[in-house]
């Protein structure tokens, strides 16, 4: 056996040991979700899978209301984000002036304000405006948090569009909206779609604002899971089943967008 191949097998082994160790808590949660409440406390890997815990989660409380809130909030804020971000990114990418670059930079810098710095005024403002514990209230917050990412990512995808095509369209008399809809939308669709997925993931997992600004009506799944932290009793199988339902779809989306994640979170500082 040659040395190269031995080396490759050693790296394979180390790489997989790390990967499995890292993934283990998630795997363990997924396994426990299919156990009975009694079986959840034993570390057996071989057991008779049951959907009991899932049935309990659906029966207990109003699981579907939490899920609906999460879906409404993450999709709502993503759509709103795009409505605000795409025209801005279009202008910055195709009609740059001396000031557009610094405006873009300023937009990115708003992402660097720590949420905790504005928690108190937002809480008081939202109470005053009747937005506390409402879905629109959370949609507004998540839109504003994600807006810099949306602008930046749309901007980078627009920059990849060849200039010649746009100029040809303009000579043919296309206005802004036609250009955005008939040319840029199809050309940048893959990029914008992955941006949308990324924004949905961020909103879905956001916990700081959803814990502090929602109470009974607008609680998303992050809060539903947090309700299992109460010391009244440990229900591991149910906790796992609820977590599994909240995490699994988003993880699949996350795996699909992992390449865009670097682009979206570093604002081009790492290529």
């Amino acid at each position, binding site marked *: 056996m040659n040395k190269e191949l031995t080396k490759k*097998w050693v790296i394979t082994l180390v790489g*997989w040991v790390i990967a499995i160790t890292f993934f283990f808590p998630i795997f*363990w949660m997924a396994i426990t979700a299919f156990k009975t409440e009694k079986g959840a406390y034993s570390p057996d890997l071989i057991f008779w899978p049951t959907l009991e815990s899932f049935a309990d989660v659906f029966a207990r409380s109003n699981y579907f209301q939490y899920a609906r809130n999460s879906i409404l909030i993450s999709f709502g804020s993503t759509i709103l984000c795009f409505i605000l971000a795409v025209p801005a990114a279009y202008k910055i990418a195709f009609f740059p002036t001396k000031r557009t670059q610094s405006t873009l930079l300023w937009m990115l810098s708003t992402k660097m304000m720590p949420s905790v710095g504005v928690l108190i005024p937002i809480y008081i403002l939202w109470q005053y405006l009747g937005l506390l514990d409402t879905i629109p209230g959370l949609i507004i917050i998540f839109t504003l948090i994600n807006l810099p990412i949306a602008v930046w990512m749309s901007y980078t995808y627009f920059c990849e569009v060849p200039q010649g095509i746009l100029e040809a369209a303009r000579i043919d008399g296309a206005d802004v909206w036609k250009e955005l809809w008939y040319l840029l939308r199809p050309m940048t669709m893959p990029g914008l779609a992955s941006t949308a997925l990324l924004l949905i993931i961020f909103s879905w*997992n956001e916990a700081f604002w959803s814990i502090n600004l929602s109470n009974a009506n607008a609680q998303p799944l992050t809060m539903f899971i947090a309700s299992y932290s109460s010391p009244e009793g440990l229900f591991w199988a149910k906790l796992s089943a609820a977590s599994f339902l909240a995490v699994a779809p988003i993880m699949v989306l996350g795996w699909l967008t992992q390449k865009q994640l670097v682009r979206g979170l570093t604002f081009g500082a790492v290529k």
Partner: protein
Amino acid sequence: MTELSYEAVEAEKALHPPVSPPGSAGRSGRLKSWLMAPAVISLLLWMIVPLGMTIYFSFIRYNLLNPTNSGFAFFENYIFLAGDPSFWPAIINTLLFIGSVLVISIVFGVLFAVLYDQEFFGKNVAMLLVIAPFFVMPTVSALVWKNMIMHPVYGLISLVCQKPGLPAIDWFAQYPLFSVIVIVSWEWIPFSFLILVTAIKSLDREQREAAAIDGAGPIAQFFYIVVPHLGRAMAVVVMIETIFLLSVFAEIYTTTGGGPGNATTTLAYLVYALGLQQFDAGIASAGGILAVILANIVSIFLVRMLARNLQTAN
């Protein structure tokens, strides 16, 4: 327009001058500024209104439950905050927490990046598994770790430790801050890894080969070629993570609630406790301003770096 002659195209151009190429401040450029207005105005409101209110609140007496206690307070809130028995522990906890998570995520991120830069069997699938924790919502990772991994009796760590007869450890009672650090590191190593593994791809292979010929071993190569090459990406990871870590809240809220005592009370948790549990908006705002100042120190460097990149991109 394919049938048109050269002259016709020129005439057409004279009638409808082509739009200005990017980079030039043409008339059409200024005309389309309104497209940017909705985004700029919403972000401007988001920046100015709440931040202005935080600054204002931090200088007045403002208790949400006691409206009679009002008036200008000068630096009273800040002085009161500094005198709060959990303030200095919170600052130390915040620094310890952010510092540890940063060191852990950079060290593991670099090591993993070097490892996963090699080709091996099933690499792409293995990478997905390493990245996965980043997509788990904070409340889920906090509770899964607290209950199923670190539980003093039934937790996996205890079960493994009991086999050779090691004493069981009640992680969240004995080492609360460390436990929170472990959970948050688990969430943020994937982020650091993803960025560093992207950055390491641009490393010049020939440079390493030349170093190897000159007699540099793998360790020397790592410290003199790989680490300097990743310097910039590491700086980016440090800055971005610092800003996010300053607001870490859900992991503490669901596991320890800032305790025992104030062992896991960070600045973010203290602001929450002062403002939304004790309803003293004035003092909590003073704490919020402190967090903003800390974040700004970091973001100055980050913004400068981004500005340089935008310039070179054009």
